[in-house]
């Protein structure tokens, strides 16, 4: 079983990869929102909008219990997030508490994927979205146990 700390670590890494992949000309969009949007688009193809909406709502509910700053955030009918997206380009993702709620949300979403799809398929999905990303064997190998 993937622990919350492991899925949070994975979320941190996705945010770091996305930050590195960002371009200067890009709008000052939340990195975590970009990560979320990539996941949303891919998962809507896989599971449908309704399927993704259910997953995202569950992830948000779980994340809200850990991050009160997500209290105003909602999942829109198309699965996108409402009330999130303030620029956090300056945030030190690893060390700062700022933006931690978004990280927890991503972590919770990844945690659900690991639970439902397993490590191997989640790893494939992430590799498909972030081709340069490398995941440790622990994540990929945890699929069947998750």
């Amino acid at each position, binding site marked *: 079983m993937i622990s919350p700390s492991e899925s949070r670590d994975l979320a941190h890494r996705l945010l770091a990869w996305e930050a590195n992949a960002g371009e200067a000309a890009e709008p000052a969009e939340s990195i975590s929102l970009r990560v979320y949007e990539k996941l949303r688009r891919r998962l809507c193809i896989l599971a449908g*909008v309704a399927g993704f909406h259910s997953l995202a709502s569950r992830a948000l509910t779980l994340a809200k219990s850990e991050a009160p700053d997500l209290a105003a955030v909602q999942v829109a009918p198309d699965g996108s997030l409402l009330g999130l997206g303030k620029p956090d380009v300056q945030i030190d993702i690893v060390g700062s508490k700022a933006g931690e709620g978004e990280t927890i949300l991503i972590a919770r979403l990844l945690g659900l994927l690991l639970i439902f799809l397993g490590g191997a398929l989640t790893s494939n999905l992430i590799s498909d979205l972030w081709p340069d990303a490398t995941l440790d064997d622990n994540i990929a190998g945890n699929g069947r146990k998750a």
Partner: protein
Amino acid sequence: MSTQGKVTIHKLLTGVPGLDEIVGGGLPEFSFNIIAGAPGSGKTTLAHQFVFANATPERPALYFTVLGESAIKMLRYQQQYTFFNPAKLPDSIRFINLSQVVLEKDLGAVLEEITTEVQKANPAVVVVDSFRTMVRQPQSDMDLQSFIQRLALFLASWQATTFLIGEYAEDELRDNPIFTVADGLFWLRQTTERNSIVRKLQIVKLRGQASVPGLHTFRITDAGIQAFSRTFGLTARVRNPVGERRLSFGIPELDKMLDGGVREGDSVLVAGSSGTGKSVLATQFIAEGINQGEPGIVAVFEERPQAYAERAASLGLDLDTPQKEGKLAILYLRPLDLSVDETMQSILDAVQKIDAKRLVIDSLAGFEMALSPGFRADFRESLYRMIFALTGIGVTILSTVEVDESFTEFPFSTYSISFLCDDIIRLRYVSIEGQLRKIMVVIKMRGGNHAKDIREYEIMSKGVVILGKRLTNYQGLISGIPVRSAHSAQEVEPSHVTEIEKQT
């Protein structure tokens, strides 16, 4: 390539053990197929096995999910099967959910969505699961028919082999345009018989090639679906011509009664009541085969392999060494909820694994009793198919069967399976001079000039031993209660000895 030649329809492996044989060697490429059946009958698993067997990064599979089972849950469950290779996702296998299009738009939009994705991916395989939910409420029959026609035409033109999965009842076979358009129709059935679940597969329709007709048992295991062809996968094998070679029992007198031994490729039935030595005879038959370099299989149902080998050892027959050397396999089959076809498949697998030349089924009564009641109705028919298939490739089969001892009748078998056998050897008790003695007679030998003698035998430390003299001084031996003949007061030499002597 000859421009005048007929088109070659390539066959794709189904990825389902046993199914290739049933569909005639594989599924026709670019065919438009329906997998129909009730919920839980294995439709999605069948489609997944085909997809995983055929999808490549160059020619991927597109798996469209619609309403019904969510893709995430589907993947969660399907990945438990051993055929599921996660590395194939998403490069070789791509899942696309069409629920929103179906819910919010019409069939035209659905077709457009599928068309777009197919043109983008150039897939070798397309699956729509569940197609039924997509067309449950068509605006009119014409809409549905038009949609299916266009979908089939488009996917065939794009060189995709297609599966539409649907939950259909059998009475929907008529008047449904989808079944008219389909090239292949796979119907999966699941019924409950007593406490057992019986799964059967039927190829209702398959254009372009001959499939094996009828209902085929299938099972869903950790490895996915495994189908059991009614022909047991042996139709593709070259049938051996009927040989003239005779196989010895290792009992010279019995071999003589059989005109030199059992003809290779025959099915022999040894019938007798309890304690008459049927299993001993069968063991001697298999042991003699090992001595002659002919690997053998013994399928036992009433005792465990170790006990069987120990009993053979008590007769001086070593079955342990040939087992270790891979020349003999003793199968202990207590199938309980297995179908007769699955059980027979186990025997066939063992036969093919060691290239067995002799097979002993000990006993048919035990075999039938080991099956759950729901499958017993198929027993005779399945047994017939297995014996026909195995003897056709040159395996010689000896089956034992217990018959009720009667002192007014002389039954060969209570199972009405005599027609399955080329040769019948009957063992029975007779009451002679205050003793319960044993006699043996060859009742039938197809294509052979067997002895007509009724011979007395005993089971000794080295097995069945036929005693030297033919009993001629009794009348009514086969009744079990003979009377001493008035005109003869002695035993004479067996007829086959005198006949051979006359010839020389």
